[in-house]
């Protein structure tokens, strides 16, 4: 097994420690992500998932425990912390609200410039990042504030991609977008993933969205990770997920109901494609009898 590109060891985070508002947001969390992995994190609002991802590039400092990026403790030195921020790119929710430069080009180049790269390399990265998110060249000289909502979001994602992080974390990257916008952003992310073999970590509320896109799911609840595995493994725990205020994809619900009605079908399906295959195979079995 390859070693994790990023991991936490017994990570704890307590907000407002020693006050009446003390809140333990993370409790002994051991989290791992591997190179080239497409990983999903799910959890309801307040579960601790945002606190977890803010530790992964050093925005929050652990109350106790460690965060390792490429086997190095990101808090061992100032240089290590700085390095982690370049290696682990974090795209916040509604990142389009963070655009600030006069032109799209300047906005995307902000990160690479902070890394101290030369102009030629900055230019290459800006253009490549823009291409990854499907922004045409002519947009680069425009003000980001003249663009549509979907384009603004792509500019914001390009700004993080331009740092060429080995781990790209996106918090609800498709929130508020229509189905076309969702598909475009997810394709952009997948292109970056394929080209750079980066680990991608996506946080989403949509089980259906997650089911289609990720290799592995990590469930965060009450500051811990109670479930971790393939979508099929995780979605087998429907009752637990529902108790956590989450749920299972629609096709899983339909096929569990179908099974309860007495049909002999595979109820571990979670996409329309799988559901179709499961139904056809049950239908053929019936015909053969």
């Amino acid at each position, binding site marked *: 097994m390859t070693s994790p590109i990023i991991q936490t060891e017994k990570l704890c985070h307590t907000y407002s420690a020693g006050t009446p508002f003390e809140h333990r947001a993370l409790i002994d969390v051991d989290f791992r992500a591997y190179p080239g992995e497409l990983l999903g994190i799910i959890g*309801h*609002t307040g579960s601790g998932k945002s606190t977890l991802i803010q530790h992964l590039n050093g925005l929050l400092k652990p109350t106790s425990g460690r965060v390792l990026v490429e086997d190095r403790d990101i808090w061992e030195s100032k240089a290590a912390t700085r390095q982690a921020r370049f290696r682990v790119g974090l795209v916040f929710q*509604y990142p389009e609200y963070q655009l600030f430069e006069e032109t799209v080009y300047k906005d995307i180049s902000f990160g690479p410039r902070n890394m101290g790269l030369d102009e030629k390399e900055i230019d290459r990265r800006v253009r490549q990042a823009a291409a990854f998110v499907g922004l045409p060249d002519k947009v680069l000289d425009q003000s980001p504030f003249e663009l*549509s*909502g*979907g384009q603004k979001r792509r500019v914001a994602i390009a700004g993080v991609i331009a740092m060429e992080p080995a781990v790209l974390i996106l918090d609800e990257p498709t*929130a*508020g*977008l*229509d*189905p*076309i*916008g969702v598909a475009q952003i997810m394709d952009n992310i997948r292109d970056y993933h394929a080209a750079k073999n980066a680990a991608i970590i996506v946080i989403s*509320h949509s089980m*259906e969205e997650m089911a289609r896109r990720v290799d592995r799911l990590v469930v965060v609840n009450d500051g811990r990770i109670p479930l971790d595995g393939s979508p099929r493994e995780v979605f087998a725990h429907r009752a637990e997920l529902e108790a956590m*205020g*989450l*749920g299972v*994809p*629609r*096709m899983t*619900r*339909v*096929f569990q*109901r*179908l099974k309860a*009605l*007495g*049909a*002999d*079908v595979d109820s571990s399906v979670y996409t*329309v*494609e799988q*559901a*179709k295959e499961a*139904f*056809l195979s*049950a*239908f053929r079995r*019936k015909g053969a009898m």
Partner: protein
Amino acid sequence: MENPILKTESLTFSYPAEEGSKLVLEGVDLEIQAGSFVAILGHNGSGKSTLAKHMNAILLPSGGKVYVAGMDTTDEEKLLAIRRTVGMVFQNPDNQIVANVVEEDCAFGPENLGVPSDEIRKLVDDSLRVVGMYDYRRHAPHLLSGGQKQRIAIAGVLAMKPRCVVLDEPTAMLDPIGRREVLETVKALNESQGVTVVLITHHMDEAAQAGRLIVMSEGKVISDGPPRQVFQQVELLRSVGLAVPETVELLYELNQEGFSLPLDALSDEACAQTLYQLLSKD
């Protein structure tokens, strides 16, 4: 009786001073009956939000007419009466809350209308009860969840006693729990309060719960009917960048394999029953 409560006639609209002044609405004719629950579905840029903003004269037609309870929205003397008839709720809860205490926020609308203060007290209490936020009336809005804030925004509109509420993607920024809370509130407005509801959304599952579904694309209405009828037009909806509920999608995909299943299963149960019948038939 002045049915319909909302009516558009050959409504066209283009934003002024934009390049080429492309039409955002290209001739929309609609009648929305008082007391109904209508969802308007469309992708970004389809014109659905622009249409919504015509429903209480935030925008005025470039061509054609819009009538609110029989009042022409271009008649400036009717503006106050139009705004009292149709209340709007927007996407971002944080942009709609003006006060530091929940009940004060709700009182903002009726205060502006010059309602006597003892009546305001009752309007505010009643509205907060309808949205299930009465227990939070002394709380600070910024400490509440997105779904709770959005329900307060709805209560603030309700306190003005509108006959119709137009909600422009009210759940787009909410998590699943918040979405459910807001949708339940919207349904209650319509069912128990008799308020006409127009819900603008791009979530199929929300649109499926309305009594009538209007689909917009490129500034035009391309489909209009009960949700279970509209969602059967899988190819039409896909061609304009919309999806259908997964239950309908599955039945549609099975029909591509040679089955001839009805495409009207909007619930998990209806879909499971349709499939079960096929598997249990001899």
